[in-house]
């Protein structure tokens, strides 16, 4: 097992030490917010000298905080559902047809992942100020559908490549119509990859800052935008409570995705 870099004990220990320092550096920021969030409500303190729920109380009694969290959950939920409705049929059509130049369309659907998000933020800002969509939930959801499309595409297209085409052929030969095949044969096989894509899209939308910062003001403000301005201007300890809630949510979603991916790998 150590064949990769020889058998010297010294080099192995050096590498292990360096690696563990790095693991701590990667993990620490996500975990340290948890103890801080139960500590002193007056200032950010680690290690905390008392145990209170005061910061959570502050979060849930301040409308500006929990209101933006409700808004974020709403935007992420609507975005995920609409992206699924648009992207799953499109992925199916890309994989199961001989449409000429379909690579061009695939490139278009993947593009949001490759363009710096600040450029998209500025473009949408210019566009929505003409269209009267600035600081509206509609405008924000539209741009989040665009941003999350590549992630659902990647997941569903790989699911389609792994699914059994012959089942569709058999259904078709036995006289099933195209919609029946899609809903009764294709979709059931894609359940796990659709769920992975959906969880990913939900998390992306929930955490998205830059575009939301450009497009929203006081009315449609999401939690990340509220957090961004709070870190920038006041650095209040309430942030630790918000961060803990967000980290737990991300962790749940990540575990869900890992479990689902295991399942798809186990029975392809």
């Amino acid at each position, binding site marked *: *097992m*150590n*064949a*990769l*870099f*020889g*058998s010297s004990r010294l*080099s192995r220990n050096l*590498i*292990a030490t*360096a690696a563990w320092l790095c*693991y701590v*550096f*990667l*993990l620490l*920021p*996500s975990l*340290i*917010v948890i103890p*801080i969030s139960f500590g002193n409500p007056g200032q950010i303190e*680690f290690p905390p000298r008392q145990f209170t729920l005061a910061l959570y109380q502050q979060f849930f009694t301040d409308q500006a905080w929990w209101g933006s969290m409700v808004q974020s959950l709403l935007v992420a939920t609507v975005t995920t559902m609409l992206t699924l409705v*648009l992207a799953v*049929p*499109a992925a*199916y*059509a*890309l994989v*199961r*047809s*001989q*449409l000429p130049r379909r690579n061009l369309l695939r490139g*278009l659907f*993947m593009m949001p*992942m*490759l363009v*710096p998000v*600040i*450029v*998209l933020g*500025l*473009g*949408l800002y*210019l566009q929505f100020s003409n269209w009267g969509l600035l600081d509206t939930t509609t405008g924000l959801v*539209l741009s989040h*559908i*665009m941003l999350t499309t590549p*992630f659902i595409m990647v997941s569903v297209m790989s699911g389609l490549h792994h699914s059994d*085409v012959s089942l*569709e*052929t058999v259904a*078709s030969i036995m006289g099933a119509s195209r919609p029946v095949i899609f809903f009764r044969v294709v979709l059931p096989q894609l359940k796990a990859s659709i769920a992975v894509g959906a969880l990913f899209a939900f*998390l992306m939308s929930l*955490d998205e*800052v830059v575009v939301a910062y450009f497009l929203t003001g006081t009315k449609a403000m999401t939690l990340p935008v509220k957090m961004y301005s709070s*870190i*920038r201007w006041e650095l209040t300890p309430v942030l*630790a409570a918000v961060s803990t809630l*967000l*980290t737990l949510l*991300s962790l749940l979603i990540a575990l869900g995705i890992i479990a689902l991916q295991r399942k798809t790998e186990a029975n392809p």
Partner: protein
Amino acid sequence: MAQSGTASELSLPSALMLLAPLTLLMLAILVYPLALTVWTSVYPGQFSLQAYTELLSSTLFLKVLKNTFEISLSGTLVSLLVGYPVAMHLAAQPPSRRTAYLIMVMLPFWTSILVKSFALAAVFGNQGLVNQLLGFVSGGQINLPMMFNRVGVILGMINFLLPFMILSILGSLLAQDRTLILAAETMGAKPLRIFWKITLPLSLPGVVAGVLINITLSIGMYITPALLGGRQDMMVANLVDFYTRQTLDWTAASATAVVLLLISGLLVALLGKVRGASGLSGAVA
């Protein structure tokens, strides 16, 4: 697999019908705003390239461009130097334990960038955990400035970049033929020599891809320099925001955004050449 005419294949009209809604949305919400940005940069009333000539003679823009490359390249370099030993450590683990370590590596990838920025400010700030520890060890008051300056940006950046670098290098380490190393050992080669002559050269494709992914991801960074850097650490993305919100100069903002788009387009194309078309998507998904 699906040859033309087989029963599982979609007819062209139904394929078009399924693709039309998403295509229209992408044209309206992705292509149109990008085109509008280019248009705004060259048409402030009439056609002119003045915004670009002004950028090139603006000391602010040139300084920010220099910052951007400096920060992006040094962040990538640190990420490579830190990430390589981690990838080696992971490659040497038995598969089950490797999965557990990989989850630790991937955790930052799942955590909101705002949570990470806030936490890094708490850990590395003036009264943060690291300064407390240093003070405790040395027995005095230590206020090493590691936040709201260049060091802060780099720390925030490598926390974000490391998972991509590690996964990329790990891929090419795991793909190596280990009998080569056994053979070299049998013939009496020392570990350091084995590393320089076998492990490192064979892992270069992963290194190159990891470096390109890191530069591409860091060149357009906005949140990290804004929250963890000082006023001297503005990057191109922050300049776009500055022109848009502070000076309300949409022409300059658009021209700056177009420059950033071109730079990152070049990088993505380069990455595509190195890794095949799925370069970035493979790293992200």
